[in-house]
């Protein structure tokens, strides 16, 4: 592999992919470093997206495919940036690639190994609601379509190696280190969710029918774990579903890791979206959204919210103090109404969706000296005029790495970060110098 490039983009979610495309289309070479075995980030696991209700994988895969097939874009999966060193005006980036135990160039994604593997483990991509094998292709529309072996759960029975038609399985694969020289670095490492469901007040993670927003996304996805929306405890179709807004956000009382004091920005809209999709697939279901403020602030969002009201989804301004388990494994919500008479009551529901807080997916300050805010997200050089430039020249930020945001806002920032990075590369003449040197060397 060529170990010199123009820009390294850390994170292959929708923001990172868009940065890469907007740089590559300007003629720069880009390497995307993605920690997971597939690009696509969180977006590829969503069902449909607000407010257009487009099927998420249908609009995300074109971007993934465009990046994967772009002649100027190289994608490294199962890879993480270990160090970034400034060398004059450019950077030396150390990338560590975890072994897949499957030779990437040999695997044809036929899944024969997967079918042969006897081990079943909960599937992270399906929010642990479905199962996968110990060797598996990450998910149907993963890119690249290459299997990986989960050594933690592998029994080394050898079935996969025997089933593989191309001898791609290599139990002895070692981690690989790549030293990449680059003129610019873009941090697009996205977000993670707090473990709000494990908070004592929400049942300590033990209530089967209390799900997180992302789990509900999977249940609603056309190719999700059950193929339809069912209660995890008994496989029954739920009659009543509740959404607990700000469960892990705008809360100073939850410990770190379970909640955050800020607004996570997308939960109001995804709850409304999920409520709409639910009432589409289960016409008789009764849906209640418990909320503090509905933050339908983006383009077309307010109409979306008003449509949801008109569809008969109940919006109740209330705080949910705790969740316990009642009869039939029904979660029971202790709610304190903020409106009407302010009464406190217990409301049973068949199924409850919690909206966890959104936190930074990665702390880049361990490898790049960028500044991090007290909220853990990357700080920009000037929050108003240059939101995508960090305080380290040549390092830029895009998407949810600089705070919770939805897909359109992530896409816009990705474009902006690409513009900033392109101008940095032009100013330092890094790209052109590199090409001239390469040509001279080639002669």
């Amino acid at each position: 592999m060529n170990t010199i490039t123009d820009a390294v983009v850390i994170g292959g979610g929708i923001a990172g992919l868009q940065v890469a495309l907007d740089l590559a289309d300007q003629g720069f070479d880009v390497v995307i470093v993605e920690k997971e075995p597939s690009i696509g980030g969180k977006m590829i696991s969503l069902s449909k997206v607000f407010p257009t209700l487009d099927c998420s994988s249908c609009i995300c895969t074109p971007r993934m495919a465009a990046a994967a097939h772009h002649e100027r874009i190289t994608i490294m999966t199962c890879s993480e940036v270990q160090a970034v060193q400034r060398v004059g005006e450019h950077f030396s980036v150390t990338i560590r690639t975890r072994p897949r135990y499957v030779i990437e160039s040999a695997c044809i994604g036929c899944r024969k190994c997967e079918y042969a593997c006897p081990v079943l483990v909960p599937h992270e991509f399906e929010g642990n609601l479905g199962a996968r094998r110990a060797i598996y292709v990450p998910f149907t529309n993963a890119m690249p379509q290459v299997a990986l072996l989960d050594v933690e759960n592998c029994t080394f029975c050898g079935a996969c190696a025997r089933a593989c038609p191309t001898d791609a399985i290599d139990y002895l694969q070692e981690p690989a280190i790549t030293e990449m020289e680059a003129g610019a670095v873009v941090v697009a490492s996205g977000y993670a969710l707090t473990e709000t469901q494990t908070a004592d007040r929400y049942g300590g993670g033990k209530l089967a029918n209390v799900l997180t927003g992302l789990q509900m996304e999977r249940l609603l996805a056309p190719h999700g774990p059950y193929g339809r929306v069912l209660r995890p405890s008994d496989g029954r179709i739920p009659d009543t579903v509740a959404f607990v807004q700000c469960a892990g956000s705008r809360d100073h009382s939850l410990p770190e890791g379970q909640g955050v004091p800020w607004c996570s920005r997308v939960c109001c809209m995804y709850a409304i979206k999920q409520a709409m999709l639910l009432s589409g697939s289960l016409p008789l279901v009764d849906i209640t959204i418990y909320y503090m403020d509905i933050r339908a602030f983006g383009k077309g969002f307010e109409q979306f919210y008003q449509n949801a009201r008109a569809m008969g989804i109940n919006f109740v301004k209330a705080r949910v103090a705790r969740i316990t388990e009642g009869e039939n494994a029904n979660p029971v919500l202790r709610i304190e109404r903020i409106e009407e008479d302010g009464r406190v009551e217990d409301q049973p529901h068949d199924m409850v969706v919690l909206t966890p807080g959104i936190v930074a997916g990665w702390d880049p300050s361990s490898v790049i000296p960028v500044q991090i805010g007290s909220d853990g997200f990357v700080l920009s050089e000037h929050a108003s005029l240059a939101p995508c430039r960090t305080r380290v020249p040549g390092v830029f930020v895009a998407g949810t790495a600089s705070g919770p945001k939805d897909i359109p806002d992530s896409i816009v920032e990705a474009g902006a970060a690409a513009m900033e990075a392109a101008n940095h590369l032009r100013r330092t003449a890094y790209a052109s110098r590199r090409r001239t040197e390469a040509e001279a060397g080639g002669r």
Partner: protein
Amino acid sequence: MTETKRRVGVYVCHCGGNISDVIDVQKVVDGVANIEDVVVARREMFMCSDPGQNLIAEDIAAHNLDRVVVAACSPSLHEATFRGTLKRSGLNPYLYEHVNIREQASWCHKDDPEGGTRKATRLVAAGIAKARNLVPLDPVRVPVTRAVAVVGGGIAGLRSAIDLAKSSFEVHVIERAADLGGHLARPGRVYPTDEPAQDLLTGLLAQARSLPGLTLHTETELVASTGYLGNFRLTLQGPSGEPRELTVGSIVLATGFEHYQPSLGELGFGMSDRVVTLPDFIERLDPRGPTGGQIVKDGKPVQRVVFIHCVGSRQLEGVHVPPEGGRLYEHCSRVCCTTALFASIELARKFPQVDIFDVYQDIRTYGRGQEDIYEAAARAGVTFFRVAGDAPPTVEIDASGAITVRLVDLLTFNEPIEMPVDLVVLVTGMIPRDITPLIEMFKLPRSPDGFLQEVHPKLRPVEVCVDGLFIAGACQAPMDVAEAAASASAASAKAACLLGGDVISLDPFVASIQAELCDGCGLCLAECVYVKALTRAEGETVPVVNTALCKGCGMCAAVCPHEAITVRGWEIKQYDAMVDAIVATGGHP
């Protein structure tokens, strides 16, 4: 119809379940597998995924396919993906036909899977018929001018211009007003950096003026545009009165927004000088503003100030009445909650004795650091009242000029509140600016909210349906300074991608004329809706197509009595074949 033998590959996509939950995809495959020239017919979970595309590539190699049909989602999503697959496999990318059996079959026939399956089969058969008649095409290539016009000199326009000038494009900022900066040019501080807006502007302007290749045209309007992507010929009307011509490769529209102006009497507006809009109030808070930073009533500092949110935003039919000839503004203006809270904190800081009230429906402090502003406002002593959207507060001004605000507060369980106040601040929203001439000039669509409509609200927020035109800042939707700056840079990036090379490739679906069939009747010339796309020189019989201007709409082909003019890739004989196939395919039994 076709004489030559073709080798067609047909691929039916499950789309995860989006298609296969309704359509029996195997039946569709079986229903078309025996059509003449079909060499392989298959189905797959996601045709757009790597395995799906590899399947096509392998079949092209193994079976020598020369035409490919994929039946999947809308062509707007994946047609380009599969053309790319053909190209990588060494086939001309235009030997590809995309059939939409998701929007046009599975999604609209959920209640009739069998009928949907029959329809899908027919559509695929028609696609095959067309594919058999496809011919290789080459993209239209047009040279580009490495210059960009930015219409509007506010924050978004300036930011975009600076980005592009730094990328060494020639940039022209066209600003109608005498001064640059738009709304940023007014006094007042802005969140989140808590800086005077004018300081931000000064910095930007200094940068813009220092960049070679960046020209700022003030008191200038864009009055006409001809040409196309890569080469727009613009006419500017400047202060001198002499129109001026300019050629640019791309245009960034950054025309911004307008503040909602309440109508006379709306929440007391215009009935007292102590009922003001938020932008006016922010100006007064600024020591450089019209009142020198003083907020007074009868010469004495005010005691009680109320902010009323959502004035001109989130309007509801039956509750709000649009002005004569006006419209309701149903959208949320996004920035006003934070702006109002930010202003109330500043008010409390400067005048600690003031009692501040805030009447809202939902507090939408969504952005980074904005929840802190909300909490700080509460700590600063702001008292909040929550009202329902369909029960807005009222403002009454009596003969003595005393102001009373009445509302029903949801936070205290529907308690009716009546409060005398010294000053009412109407938190007015952002509404689309009237840019009708530009909209007509470029035939731009608007979203239902009246702002400019992007190509795709999720994935292509700064592009519009006119090639070569981009939108930046609040002309697309309400947004704050940082968001406008990001949107401007994103638009610049798109322009830079477009104009980076010497030529631009366009789709080849343009009109073409078979001269020997043309008798020069001229019907097509009269029908063409695009300026100069179809022309005929003096004394000539046969018209000429300007392939860069032609949009392939087919109006000319529809009127030609001799089928002399036709649209490449959408030829009449291809349509004929499709219709024949639809009629012939009864679907499966």
